[in-house]
């Protein structure tokens, strides 16, 4: 295998030599540059070689391209024999590391040379959860010995590390803690970063994690590391003691050859040589930070203010109102500014509610952060308020309650009360307007106005017509009631005066029957007398008893009302006078003339 590689290297040298000769014969240019490969992914490096053919040693300056980092990794000088001619050449080998993705143009190293183009694509590849599998052979460490800064634990192959920086070890549930997550990748040994860092414990959440991390470079144990730092807010949702760590998915280059065969590569420290000769293969891994113990405490219930909404941090408040002068009914804006650091997502306030002589509306809030993660800044609450009465009014001071984790107790910040001058509304005022004086120019409306009036009328307290005023509606109501009562009384009196005596039949049928009975009594016709009375009573009783009129007989009457009453006696006399021919005395006629109307009106005997 090693013999094959040596053969490849020899062939490459021959090809390069032939190419250089052709360039030399062309005699232009004497200095040229090549870049290999011309397309790489972010996190990889390319090789820029500047070759100078000939004796002249013209000075070569490093190119400067924004977004690319150039590092000289080696110089070579050699003499080549081409067609019997010796040709000295020197080369400078540079590593080009892109800092961002894009297409870069590297300017020509000489005026006659062509510029080079390097295309850098974003880091690709899925996130693999596979750490170095237990069964896989552990690659030999690239770094050995040397001091490593505190808090940094490199991976076994020394290619990367993740560091989680938490400023405190005791936090409260709901508290926001600013954290830094640092992912260090050794230059040339990490192909790509495959995702954002995350926490390994579900009891914590990272809020406002920045998508664009800060990029720095750091020398660790003498090796160059590219360090990406994310700033975020750690939110705690559950009390307890936790071991917290962060992890980041990376693709690293794993060495495939024994270490003794790659000593030259390590000496160069350059992935170019590894890629060229197939010394490494890419592998997806998750790099974890060492776990850190974090104690999460419950918020104390003792001394918790009623208006505490969960804000934890250090805050101060200020308030103002604008404008300071207004008319009744004009909306004013009351502002409360809460400044400090903490969990601003839980900073809330209802501001003023139910204030005498003021109408209040629900406030709106806005937050201006002073850091990228929203841990510190100023939250402003704006509440529209409307004064309902004129005069010097006062808006009471505002308060805001929070828990201070430094003092470990609840605090209430208060603002001073605010004074506002409220003028009466023009529409409700009868005061003549204050003009600017007689010299003031009159408006265009003044020219055609008719003159003022002299006031002689008695002023009224209301513009509502008196007949629509509730307090005066009692007068017509009383009049209506009084006349209604008088009319009803008069009508009743008239009805009483027109009514007949109680012993007289009032209906037309009763009068007719009575007339027939009187006629029969005058002629002494007892059968006709009682027959008329019975005939008149039969339909009345039939209707009441729900039977046919011909079924109303003496026996039926006896059954229903008994025998000891005028009704039964009347029916019995009618039967007797009709079938026996008995003639009742004149006294009997007179009595029955009084009884029958009563029976007709009541339907029963008195």
């Amino acid at each position, binding site marked *: 295998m090693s013999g094959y590689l040596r053969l490849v290297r020899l062939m490459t040298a021959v090809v390069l030599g032939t190419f250089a000769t052709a360039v030399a014969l062309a005699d232009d240019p004497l200095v040229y540059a090549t870049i290999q490969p011309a397309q790489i992914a972010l996190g990889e490096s390319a090789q820029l070689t500047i070759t100078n053919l000939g004796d002249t040693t013209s000075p070569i300056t490093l190119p400067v391209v924004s977004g690319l980092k150039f590092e000289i990794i080696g110089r070579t000088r050699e003499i080549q024999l081409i067609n019997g001619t010796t040709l000295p050449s020197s080369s400078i080998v540079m590593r080009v590391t892109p800092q961002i993705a894009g297409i870069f143009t590297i300017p020509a190293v000489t005026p006659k040379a062509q510029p080079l183009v390097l295309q850098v694509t974003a880091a690709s590849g899925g996130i693999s959860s596979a750490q170095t599998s237990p069964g896989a052979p552990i690659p030999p460490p690239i770094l050995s010995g040397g001091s490593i800064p505190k808090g940094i634990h490199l991976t076994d192959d020394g290619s990367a590390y993740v560091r989680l920086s938490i400023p405190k070890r005791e936090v409260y549930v709901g508290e926001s803690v600013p954290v830094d997550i640092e992912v260090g990748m050794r230059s040339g040994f990490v192909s790509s970063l495959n995702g954002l860092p995350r926490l390994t414990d579900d009891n914590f959440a990272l809020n406002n994690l920045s998508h664009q991390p800060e990029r720095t470079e750091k020398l660790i144990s003498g090796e160059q590391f590219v360090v990406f730092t994310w700033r975020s807010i750690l939110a705690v949702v559950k009390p307890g003691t936790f071991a917290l760590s962060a992890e980041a998915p990376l693709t690293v280059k794993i060495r495939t050859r024994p270490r003794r065969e790659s000593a030259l590569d390590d000496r160069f420290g350059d992935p170019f040589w590894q890629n060229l000769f197939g010394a490494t293969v890419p592998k997806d891994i998750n790099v974890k930070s060492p776990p850190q113990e974090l104690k999460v405490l419950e918020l104390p219930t003792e001394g918790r203010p009623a208006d505490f909404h969960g804000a934890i941090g250090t805050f101060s408040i200020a308030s103002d109102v604008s404008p300071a002068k207004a008319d009744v009914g004009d909306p004013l804006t009351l502002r409360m500014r809460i400044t400090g650091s903490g969990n601003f997502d839980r900073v809330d306030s209802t501001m003023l509610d139910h204030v005498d002589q003021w109408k209040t509306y629900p406030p709106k809030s806005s937050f201006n952060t002073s850091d990228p993660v929203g841990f510190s800044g100023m939250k402003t609450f704006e509440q529209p308020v409307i004064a309902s009465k004129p005069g010097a009014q006062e808006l009471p001071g505002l308060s805001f309650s929070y828990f201070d984790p430094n003092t470990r107790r609840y605090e209430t910040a208060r603002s001073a009360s605010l004074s506002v001058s409220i003028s009466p509304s023009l529409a409700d005022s009868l005061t003549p307007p204050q003009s600017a004086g007689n010299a003031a120019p009159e408006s265009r*409306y003044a020219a055609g106005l008719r003159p003022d009036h002299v006031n002689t009328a008695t002023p009224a307290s209301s513009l509502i017509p008196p007949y629509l005023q509730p307090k005066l509606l009692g007068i017509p109501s009383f009049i209506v009631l009084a006349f209604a009562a008088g009319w009803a009384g008069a009508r009743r009196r008239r009805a009483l005066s027109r009514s007949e005596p109680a012993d007289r039949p009032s209906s037309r049928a009763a009068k007719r029957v009575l007339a027939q009975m009187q006629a029969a009594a005058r002629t002494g016709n007892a059968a006709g007398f009682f027959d008329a009375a019975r005939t008149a009573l039969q339909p009345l009783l039939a209707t009441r008893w729900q039977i046919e009129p011909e079924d109303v007989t003496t026996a039926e009457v006896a059954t229903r009302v008994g025998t000891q009453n005028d009704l039964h006696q009347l029916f019995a006399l009618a039967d007797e006078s009709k079938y026996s021919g008995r003639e009742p005395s004149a006294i009997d006629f007179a009595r029955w003339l009084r009884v029958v109307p009563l029976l007709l009106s009541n339907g029963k005997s008195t």
Partner: protein
Amino acid sequence: MVLCLLIGAVQVHADSDPSGYSAADLYNLGNSYARMGKPGMAILNYERASLLSANDADIDANLQYVRASAHLPGGKRGSFDRMARFASPFLLSWIGVFGLGVVGASMIAAQLSPRHRLLRRGAMLLGLSMLGLTICNGLALWPILHEGVIITAATPVRVSPVPMGDPLFTLPEGETVKIAAEHESFALIETRAGRTGWVAHPNLAPIVPRKQAVVPPE
């Protein structure tokens, strides 16, 4: 009935307020605002003055003049309005009360005695006419009692009764609108063109003030 009328007269007399409203004062106030170039407040006070003195030619003339100067549509009164408001509401109130008494007395007399039928019917007709005049006056004034005048220039009419509500359109100063409802410090108005929206109370003055109390001058 006489006792009732006496009580009413005493109550009405007690109801008069030396610092209250009079047609002349309101008319003069309207003139002052017109001279200051405030057509909204001028129209408002002319309208208020015309409630107390409907047939005052000066009030009507100045009202029409300010409306025309402000390029606002003129509110010409119809024949029914002129007839129904031939007298002040105060006088028509008493006419109505008296008419009510005449009608009631006629009805009682008809029950008590059948004689003088023609006289009774004439009295009944007179009482009903007097009562009708008062009712017609109320019908004529009822819409005005629910109207308001825009008193600020380019008043925004909002879609909802909150200060942050989106404006639908604006109304010119002096525009007379119908007040359909009120919610907190906003009034739901309807323009002559039928458009509706919410106007803040500081921008709108009802022709009949919301409160009886008069703010004393400072």
